[in-house]
């Protein structure tokens, strides 16, 4: 279709209006506010940022975000990969996949309630109603506060919820890619006497690499945005806070818009590599 004057702007206008006023403009304002005090009245330079890197609460949040980024995408993608490959070999594949995929339809809040109950604690003299502590006591151990013990037990307990939700997503995408690999290729390797492990490691995995990268990137983005799970399960207590929850607290509990904005900018900066990768990949493909 040839261009016909300006009519394309009619199609673009609603989108540009919304994107401009709801995403671009606020982003610039937030950047600006991050250099001001709690009430956005006085310019204070980099003080909000300095506080993020010196104050204990935000340092813990930074540490936890880092912990999440290291542990969660790796575990979620590996589990998804394992499922994609193993489920391919059983008869009721679709059914099994649905079971794993199901949590994706559930909200983080719903999942939070589900898992809060899994981690439930009652004092040792009473029967345990949370399944994890029931297993512990059945094995002769004392029940523990899964969401209390810091920093490993409770943070891993929270990560487990995320993994429970998102492993299905990774599985679906990796499974599609795995099924896209030519069967002949795998069979040829089998006739050459390679065992299943070697086939997976030397044939399938290299071919899946691009997909794994995409999925891992997506998981990293979601990990950085994680808020609800922590909000529902621990509210950031006991050393479990992450940046998104800290920002919410600064904004709504302490009404410190400067500090909250600075935290938002840090989250954005952490995501910047992903944004750059996306834009570059787009440019490589389309930009002529």
């Amino acid at each position, binding site marked *: 279709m040839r261009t016909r004057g300006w009519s394309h702007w009619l199609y673009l206008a609603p989108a540009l209006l919304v994107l401009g006023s709801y995403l671009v403009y606020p982003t610039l304002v*937030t950047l600006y506010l991050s250099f001001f005090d709690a009430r956005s009245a006085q310019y204070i330079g980099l003080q909000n940022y300095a506080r993020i890197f010196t104050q204990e609460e935000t340092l813990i949040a930074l540490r936890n975000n880092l912990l999440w980024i290291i542990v969660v995408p790796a575990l979620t993608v590996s589990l998804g990969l394992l499922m994609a490959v193993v489920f391919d070999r059983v008869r009721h594949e679709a059914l099994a996949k649905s079971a794993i995929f199901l*949590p994706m339809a*559930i909200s983080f809040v719903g999942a939070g309630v*589900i898992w809060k109950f899994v981690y439930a604690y009652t004092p040792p003299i009473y029967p345990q109603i949370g399944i994890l502590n029931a297993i512990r006591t059945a094995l002769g151990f004392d029940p523990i506060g899964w969401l209390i013990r810091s920093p490993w037990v409770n943070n891993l307990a929270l990560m487990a919820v995320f993994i*429970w939700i998102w492993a299905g997503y990774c599985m*679906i995408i990796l499974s599609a890619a795995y099924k896209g690999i030519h069967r002949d290729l795998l069979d040829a390797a089998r006739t050459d006497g390679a065992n299943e492990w070697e086939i997976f490691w030397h044939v399938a995995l290299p071919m899946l690499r691009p997909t794994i990268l995409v999925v891992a990137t997506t998981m990293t983005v979601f990990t950085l945005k994680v808020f609800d799970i922590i909000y529902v399960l621990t509210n950031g207590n006991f050393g479990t806070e992450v940046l998104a929850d800290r920002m919410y607290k600064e904004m709504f509990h302490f009404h410190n818009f400067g500090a909250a904005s600075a935290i938002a900018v840090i989250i954005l900066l952490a*995501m910047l590599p992903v*944004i750059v990768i996306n834009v570059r990949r787009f440019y490589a493909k389309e930009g002529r």
Partner: protein
Amino acid sequence: MRRLASHLTVFCLVLLWLIPTLGLLVTSIRPYEDVVRTGWWTTLFDPAKWASLTLDNYVQVIAQEGLGQAFWNSLVITIPASLIPLAISALAAYAFAWMPFRGRQVLLMVAVGLMVLPGQMTFIPLLTVYNKVGLSGTFLGIWLVHTAYGLPLQIYLLRNFFRALPHELLDSAFMDGASRWKIFRHIVLPLSVPALASLLILQFLWVWNDLLVALIFLGTSPEVAPVNVKLVGLVGAYGQDWQLLTAGAFVSMALPLIVFLSLQKHFVQGILAGSRRG
């Protein structure tokens, strides 16, 4: 031997994934006295207890705790918040896909960049403006916010989908003198129904399951709060009344689960399309 190992692994994984949800379902129909005294799994193996199972917990959360109203609020929020962005992004994607104009690539690149913009970057300025113009706590306000957050990904995916439509079809229609609008309305949109459906489902689930955006732009007052906000309130208010919390959680999950189970194919397609972005 190998088959057995595979089947065993699959069985264990599936079991592991289902147990938490099963616990939720069972607990939500147990009476309070049982819930605080014994684990939910004891009910499964004790037929004597089956007679005591009850829907009272659901009645209580829906009628007395206002989850019914919240469910309605969620519908009022979610349906427009899913349809509005789709309409806007379809229009824009059409322009991006089929109308050459100066700055097209740059604008599209901005949209790609905005895809992973953390919502946190927008909350404070938006809320400040919303408070001034009276949009905070209104449905219109939150529809627009969800629209904005959904747009970048939708524009990009739809644009890719539109571009993959057969060139000749659109060109010949154009030669025949059909207007851009006619082509959009009668060729592009009908051919894109599967893609539109996938995106609609994704956006529906995303909005329905949202907590943070609703907390910030709607707040907790019962006339507007969606199920998730209400559910978080119940978690705070009921502590370890698990029979109520689990019933509430199930109410919040029911609709997404129905949507998911009945439209799983579209859902999966949407996700696969999303994963191929960039």
